[in-house]
């Protein structure tokens, strides 16, 4: 009995020793790497904040409307983007290095998957950002134009433009990531079909009204034309 207990206890100790001797060094090394990466991340953020000016980029961000789009307060600066970018780059690199130290199948797969996906993620993010910017830019243009032309519900018109452009950006980004490709593509085709159908109906209705108005105008041709809103310029 005692012998059995001793053997079990020794087995536990052996396994523990094995695990400690096998896993503790990489764990410690991983922790050290993580700490170092964190320190580097903070240091890089601090240095960039003090050195980098990026006034030209600030100007671009402000003028393009990206500053207001990403941060509604409009206080977004190039230096913040650069500093935060460096901070997260160091941190993520640190985590990946720390994880890869364990050298197991799981960690290798994790690192490989991340490295493989990273360019696609970056590209998809850029597509979404560009789509959001374009949607905002053209939506605003549509809004101003619709207000000046006296088109009813200009905000809705602008919102439709924004949503459509954003939807296109999401479809392209999903295609990049190979994520629910068929679902997004089907939805996109259905939306486009719906738009074409709606436009056709609208054109038909407008044409019939236009014809009606044309015939009425012909009758009213003798009457005095009403003054333009702008004839005082």
């Amino acid at each position, binding site marked *: 009995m005692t012998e059995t207990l001793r053997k079990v206890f020794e087995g536990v100790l052996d396994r523990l020793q094995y695990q400690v001797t096998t896993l503790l060094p990489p764990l410690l090394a991983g922790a050290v790497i993580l700490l170092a990466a964190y320190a580097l991340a903070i240091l890089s953020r601090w240095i960039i904040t003090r050195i980098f000016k990026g006034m030209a980029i600030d100007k671009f961000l*402000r003028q393009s409307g990206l500053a207001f789009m990403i941060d509604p307060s409009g206080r977004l600066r190039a230096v913040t983007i650069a500093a935060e970018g460096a901070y997260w780059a160091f941190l993520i690199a640190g985590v990946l290095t720390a994880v890869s130290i364990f050298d197991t199948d799981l960690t290798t797969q994790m690192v490989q998957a991340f490295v493989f996906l990273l360019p696609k993620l970056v590209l998809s993010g850029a597509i979404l950002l560009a789509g959001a910017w374009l949607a905002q*830019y053209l939506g*605003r243009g549509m809004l101003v134009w619709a207000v000046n032309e006296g088109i009813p519900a200009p905000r809705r018109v602008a919102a439709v433009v924004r949503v459509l452009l954003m939807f296109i950006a999401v479809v392209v980004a999903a295609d990049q990531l190979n994520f629910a490709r068929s679902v997004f593509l089907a939805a996109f085709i259905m939306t486009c079909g719906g738009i074409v159908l709606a436009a056709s109906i609208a054109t038909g209705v407008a044409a019939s009204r236009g014809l009606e108005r044309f015939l009425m105008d012909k009758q009213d041709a003798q009457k005095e034309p009403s*003054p333009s809103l702008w*004839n005082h*310029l």
Partner: protein
Amino acid sequence: MTPAAISPGAEQAAGFVRQADIVVGIPSFNNARTIGHVVRAVHAGLAKFFPQWTAVIVNSDGGSTDGTRQEVLSAHMDEQHLLLLSTPVSAAHRLSVPYHGIPGQGRAFRLIFEIAERLGAKVCVVVDADLRSIAPEWIDHLARPVLQAHYDLVTPYYHRHKYDGTITNNIVYPLTRSLYGAIVRQPIGGEFGISRKLFHRYLERTDWETDVARYGIDIWMTTIALAENFRVCQSFLGAKLHDAKDPGADLSDMLKQVMGSVFLLMLEYEPVWRVRSGSRPTELFGFRFDVGVEPVAVRVDRMIDAFRAGFRDLHEIWQRVLAPKTYEGVRSVALHGGRTADPFHFSDALWTDVVIDFACAFRRRPMDRGYMMSSFTPLYLGRVASTVLAFEPLTAPEVENEIEQLCLQFERAKPGLLARWDGNGAIVNTKEEAKENTP
């Protein structure tokens, strides 16, 4: 000098004429209805007042489809009916040439200046093609101050209906006067007399392809002359009666182009206008007389609706462009103006702040300049509606006095403009202005 705007056809025509002392330019686009009268008046003016000078009438056309160019070439004036004291040395030549590139008045002007330059003209006179009140004397009034008094730019001075010329009265005249310190009543009148020195300077410029190429040309010409210390005067021309603007044109674009030109030139001539204060009168030639003007019909209710709709849908843009105090003022007018017993009122002080804030935002560029300037249209319509209501019971001199008060308001606000221009955000207003600003 930027690449020449002159086409081979125009070059050939100019080569045929070879030399002219006076070039009279008539920019046109679908003005067949009125241009014949304008050409006859110009022809008569040249024959009557400048018989010893060689002259050319140049029609710079933007591709009219209504026979404008044929009308120019076929317009006939029988000199026997002019009661001339001396026979002209030679009859004025007539050229009608199309211009190429960006369609617009600026492009047409450029071609006229190019031809004037090639012909070695001493003076170039420009008149609108849609004028119905032009008389032969206009050519004399526009050309003689250049030829005999050595002025460089002659701007028109005429009577207009109290509701006419609202961009001039509300924006361009007060702003130009407060910036450059010269009282030029019609800085975008459309009729000018220009010396050789000045049109040569215009042709040297490289910004012909901006808003200047279109409706911004008039204020561009006046501003350059004022900012670069050319000699500027005014000539009294009587009344200005002209055809209604082309209904097909996007008139919001016209406002945008004129203001865009003003603001672009503010950026360029900042060192000039920063140091100028107050305003001084500009020499006025011609015998002033009262004359009847055609009434202008306006639709105030629709303008107010457009302003309110603008506030409802564009207030986020205005919030980013206007200073907080200005925005609050606009908001108050949009929400409460005209809804009580008091009439709709967009005060001078508030309007001045709006224009100044847009000028500063144009420099700061918190967003795309095009959209920002387009969003100005409803504000402008609100202001015009307010002035129409305010001017309704007033006589012409009283209206002129009101416009004078607006100009003085702009002049008083100049320190505030400088502060905001420099990014201090300070709104320098007196207590009285603040009181007036409260609807």
